[in-house]
Each structure stands twice: as structure tokens, then as C-alpha cells.
């Protein structure tokens, strides 16, 4: 990827593409199509410079940084609880999932463990934010392929999960609920029953969406065989999450490398993979994951232990000197925080490994030779959140 701070190289790239006679048979000139930073399909401020031969993409260059907010630097001047509120905004559709790996890294450095009830609720909320995130993807991908209605259904039924998250944490999008050593509050009364209802609604939504969109012939024509990523390429570009599993790699941090503090081993669930590696496989894997997440939530709701939700931690949190990296399987893929502490109120350095940044790095490889509409399918199915790319 080219750095945005280098306008000369961007201009040179564009000029070169215009001059190139890219199609030698017809002697036609190439065209440079600038998609974004304001473009409906990039849902955010991603810019893609595509060199085209007719409608065929010769090369596509994603350029990020239009939404860079400097989170890694900001963390160096904020205390740990303050950082928790900040990093909610990285992947804004699955906010709670952003908090968890950071809190777990801090807990690991401090040697604190949250009480079992807090671990259970953490996992439930983690999976709920996964559902909130991915169910919107399913609708939004339909929207990008021209099927409007799926988008509205997704917005309607995502509301069930958001309401649950809101009633438990007080925040619809940015809960800021996780604490070092536990959670801010216990669950409200009647929350477990209403969560069961919400999960049932979500499972029904998945069925409905499968009928409306994923099973649709036009949708399959637009996604099957498009943007195929073989397993070894996916691994070499550092893809993670559903994008990697759709290429047939059976890899899920929730099962393989679950950090202490999350209780995925207490539920019976399955990691879905798909051998094809195309846009359809990525959509299908995400659809199955939404169902699995709902199943995990339903099982954990039935087995929540009683007890406190907060361990004994000092009022003023000073993290002892040391380094820790904790990564979890977030809705978009592997999300990890490498926290270096010098024993201060604030961390010395935090490196955020967010999934979307790696996931879109494969765009130049996979977009080559695709048509412009396929580029939309590929971008849509790779599923990035701009805040997760730029941080």
C-alpha cells in the first residue's frame, strides 16, 4: 500500500496509468478510476485507485489513512480506564469486542483474573457484538450488490441485539463496560430471558436472509467464483477471521488460542470453513458464524454462574512493568493489543493489530483481472470497517 503522505507518487501513478496502452490487441488506452475517499461502496473513507482496461481492473491500489486518528499515540497519554473508552471506536460496529483483548492484556500484566460470572458475561457480550457487526455486514453486502431490502432487514433485526447490549451496558454502540478485573455492573433483571428472545429473532433473521439474499441466483452469480483467494495466499497476506476460514483454513482464535478470561470452551459450537475462497464463501461463512454466535450466547446464558462481577483491584490502576500481547477472534478477524508498561498510570506503548488493515492488503492481489462490479463484490465480501483500518 502506498502511503497517503506522498502525493507525488500518487500523481505519478495516475499519470502512468493513463499513458499506458494496457490493451495491446485493440491499442486502447487505460483509464484510471479513482474510487473514494467518498464512494458508496467503500463505506467510509477508503480510497482505491483502479487502473482499468474498459471495465476490467488491471490493478487496484487501496490507500488508507483518511481517517487516521492516532489511537496508538493517544493511548500513551491516557490511563487504562480512559483507553478503554477510546478503543471502543476502532471497530465501531462491534465495540465491546475491541475492549476485551486490551483489558485481558492489562489483566495479564497485573496478574488479575475476573470472577467467573464476569467472564461469562464478557463472552456473551463479545458474541453479541459479533452478531451486531456481522448481521449488518450481511445486509450491507446485499445493499452493495443492489438488493436494497436485505439492508433494511439487517438494520431492523440488529436492533434486537443492540437493545440487549444497551440494556446491559447503557451504551448502544460504545458500551465501555469492561473493566480490569471484571465488569462495570451486573446484568439487569430479566436480561437473560429477553436475550434468549433476541437470539431466537436473530436466528430467524439468518434464515430469512438466506432465503432473500444468499440463496438468490443473481447473488450467487455475482459472488461465486469471484475474488478467489487460495489458502496459502490468504495466509501469506495475514488474513484472519472469516476471510481466512472462507479460504478453507480451519483457524479460529476462540477455539485454538482462547486467552484466559473468556469461556468459549464452556459452550458447544463449531468453526465453519468453506473450501472455495470466493466472495460467496466469505458471505456464507459469516452467515454461519452469526448462527454459531447466537448458539454460543444461548448456551452461556443458561450456565451463567452466580457471584460477584468484579475482582479486587486497586482504585488507581498502575500496571506493573512488562509486556503482553493478547489477541482475540473479533468480528473482523484477529484483533490484538501489544501493551508495554513501565509501571506507570499510562502504558508506555500500545501496538494495535486490527484485522481490517491486513484484510484489505490483499485487494491489489485479488482485484487484478476482475471487473468493476466484481471489485465491489470483493471489497464488500472482504468486509472492512474504516475505523479498524486506520485507527
Amino acid at each position, binding site marked *: 500500500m502506498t502511503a497517503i503522505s506522498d502525493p507525488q507518487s500518487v500523481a505519478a501513478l495516475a499519470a502512468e496509468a493513463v499513458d499506458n496502452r494496457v490493451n495491446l490487441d485493440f491499442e486502447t488506452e487505460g*483509464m484510471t*478510476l479513482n474510487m473514494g475517499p467518498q*464512494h*458508496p*461502496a467503500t463505506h467510509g473513507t477508503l480510497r482505491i485507485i483502479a487502473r482499468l482496461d474498459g*471495465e476490467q481492473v488491471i490493478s487496484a491500489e487501496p490507500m488508507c489513512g483518511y481517517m487516521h486518528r492516532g489511537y496508538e499515540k493517544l493511548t500513551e497519554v491516557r490511563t487504562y480506564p480512559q483507553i478503554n473508552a477510546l478503543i471502543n471506536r476502532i471497530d465501531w460496529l462491534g465495540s465491546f469486542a475491541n475492549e476485551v483483548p486490551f483489558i485481558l492484556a492489562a489483566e495479564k500484566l497485573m496478574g488479575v483474573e475476573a470472577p467467573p460470572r464476569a467472564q461469562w458475561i464478557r463472552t456473551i457480550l463479545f458474541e453479541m457484538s459479533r452478531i451486531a457487526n456481522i448481521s449488518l455486514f450481511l445486509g450491507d453486502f*446485499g*445493499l*452493495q*450488490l*443492489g*438488493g*436494497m*431490502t436485505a439492508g*433494511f*432487514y439487517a438494520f*431492523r433485526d440488529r436492533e434486537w441485539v443492540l437493545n440487549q447490549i444497551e440494556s446491559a451496558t447503557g451504551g448502544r454502540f460504545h458500551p465501555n463496560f469492561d473493566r480490569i478485573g471484571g465488569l462495570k455492573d451486573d446484568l439487569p433483571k430479566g436480561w437473560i430471558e429477553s436475550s434468549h428472545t433476541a437470539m431466537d429473532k436473530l436466528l430467524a433473521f439468518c434464515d430469512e436472509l438466506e432465503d*432473500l*439474499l444468499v440463496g*438468490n441466483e*443473481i*447473488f450467487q*452469480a*455475482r459472488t461465486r467464483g469471484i475474488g478467489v483467494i487460495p489458502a496459502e495466499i490468504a495466509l501469506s497476506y495475514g488474513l484472519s477471521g472469516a476471510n481466512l476460514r472462507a479460504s478453507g483454513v480451519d483457524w479460529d482464535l476462540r477455539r485454538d488460542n482462547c486467552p484466559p478470561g473468556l469461556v468459549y470452551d464452556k459452550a458447544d459450537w463449531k468453526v465453519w470453513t468453506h473450501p472455495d475462497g470466493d466472495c460467496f464463501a466469505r458471505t456464507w461463512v459469516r452467515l454461519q458464524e452469526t448462527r454459531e454466535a447466537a448458539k454460543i450466547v444461548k448456551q452461556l446464558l443458561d450456565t451463567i454462574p452466580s457471584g460477584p462481577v468484579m475482582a479486587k483491584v486497586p482504585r488507581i490502576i498502575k500496571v506493573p512493568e512488562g509486556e503482553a500481547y493478547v489477541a482475540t477472534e473479533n468480528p473482523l478477524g484477529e484483533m490484538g493489543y501489544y501493551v508495554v508498561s513501565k509501571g506507570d498510570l499510562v502504558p508506555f506503548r500500545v501496538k494495535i493489530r486490527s484485522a481490517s488493515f491486513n484484510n484489505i492488503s490483499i485487494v491489489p492481489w485479488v482485484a487484478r483481472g476482475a*471487473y*468493476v*462490479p*466484481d471489485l*465491489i463484490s470483493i471489497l464488500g465480501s472482504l468486509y472492512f470497517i474504516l475505523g479498524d483500518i486506520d485507527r
Partner: protein
Amino acid sequence: MTLLLASFAPPYWLSTLIKVLVVSAVVPTTALILGMVFLFKIMSWMQSRLGPQEAGPRGTLQLLADGVKFLQKEDIAPNGADRWVFKVAPLVVLMSTLLLYVALPASMHLVVADLDVGVFFVLAISSLSVIGVLMAGWASASKYSLMGALRAAGQLIAYELPMVLAVIGVVIQAGTMSLNGIVLAQNDGSIFGWGGIGFPYILTQFVGFFIFIAAVQAELTQPPFDMPVAESEIVSGYQVEYTGFRFLIFFLAEFATAFAFAAIAAVLFLGGWAVPWLPTSSDWYYVLGPIVLFAKVMVVAFIIFWVRFTYPRFREDQLQSLAWKVLIPLALVNIVVTAVLKVVL
């Protein structure tokens, strides 16, 4: 009143003036009705949301409010644009829509020009709009616009053919190319001697109806064939540089054309302005004709918009292969079968 209308024979200048006024009043009205009923209300009902609520009773005046808003906007032409062509293009699109309405019969005599070759005329005129689209795309000096316009041109070539071929079956069966003649043939016809519902051609020409509706979707650049204006790919295509009332004209033309095509489908396949229980020679059709036609148009428009709201969009090459490999052969088979049966029966 009906007798009064029947004996109404104004001088040439007056009848011309009336016809001009009627067409220029009907076109925006139909666009408003379709936009309001389908784009706002039915669409929001299908997508489980409320739709416009505030402007007028139950939000019925929302589109008027939007129209007024468009009129207030600045008329911008981009810097690199071919200004004259850029400004004329929406009018060319609207012109083809206006001309479509000239041949549409709302009853035996409520028609601006009762052409002997009405079918031929409407199909030929409808393809003129692509000239305006090409002009808009070329003159906008935007790559997205140009791609949209070229997609529209390619789509037109692919979809005029199946549309024309689909209609030929009806023409063979009716034995006339006059739209009024086709209405009469359907309503005065009978199914093996039983004239209970006349003989609407959808019963025999259902293949033609299906192909016609599919081609209409492509002609109107609606999903699943909305590649020329695909928002998520080429940011509304040839319309992207237009503002204010020039954009409004595109919108008007699109919905008025949708209404016109629904009316053509109603005339060709559903019996047009007549109901079989009232003889077509009745003077009541001066009043009933437009109402009956409107009801049938709404049924066809519902199908068109239902598909529009439900399906994702094809890719350009998939559209071409659907047109050339599926629809055109199917239409040709339909013509052959119709011709054979016409001779045999």
C-alpha cells in the same frame, strides 16, 4: 356527459393545444403517483419501515416537497462539461417519454394519436431516451458518468430486441399493430367460444409477458438490471453530475416511462382500457377507460417494482448473456409457436 364528450369536435388548433396540455400534465402526474405509491409507500412496507410520514396526510405530499426542494437547488454544470449538451440531455430523455404517451390509448377516442402502427411507434420512441443518456454521460466529463452511459447503451441494444420480439407474438395473435386494435381484439375475443373474460393475451402470451417485463426492467434501468445507475459501483452513473431540476427531469422521465411501459404491458397483455363485461363501443369508456387502464397499470407496476425492491443486480456481462442466450431464443420460439397455432387454429 359521455355523449357530450363523444360529440366534442374542436378545431385543429384547439385540439392540438388540448393534446399538448394533456400530455404535459399526465406525464408528471403519473410519475408522481408511481413515485409516491411504490417508491415511498410500497417500498417502505416491503422493507418493514414506515416511509414518509410528515408531509401531507400520511406523507402523501412528500414527493411534491422533494420536487420543490429540487427546484430550489442551484443548476450546476461541471467545469469540464460540454455545457450545451449537458443541459439538453435531460430534455432529450424527457422528450422520448412525452412521445411515448402520444400513442397510449385511454379509451377508443381518448388517445392523442391513434396510430395504425402504435406498437411499432412506442417501441421505437422508447429507445430514443438512450441518446439523452449517452449525451448526459459524455457531456458530464466524469468517468463514472461515461461508464454509466456506455453501460446504458449496451443494455439498450441487448434489451430492445427481446422486447420487440416478445411483442410480435401479441401482434400476430391480434392481427394488428394498432394499440386500440389490440385492445378491441382482446375484449371482443372469446376463449373457444366462451367470452366471459374476453381473451386477454396474457393467457397465451405468458412467455411474451415475462420477457416483456424483464426487458422493461432493463429499459428502465431498475434492479436487477440497474448497472447504468448502480449506486454502489459507479455512483449513479450518468446522473452523478446533475443537480436541481435537471436531476428532477431524469427522475420524472424514469417514473413516467415506468408508468408508460406498465400501460403498454396492460394494453398488450391485459386488455387495456376495457373490461370484457361492457361492450367496447360503449360511451361509458370515456369515463371508465382511464380508470380501468389505471387499475391495470397499477397491477403491472406492482410486479415491476416488487422485482426492483427484491433482487440484487446482475453484472453487465451476465445481463448480456441473459438477453442473448435466454430471452431472445425464448422470444423466437414464442413467435414460431404463436404463428403455427395462429395458422392451425
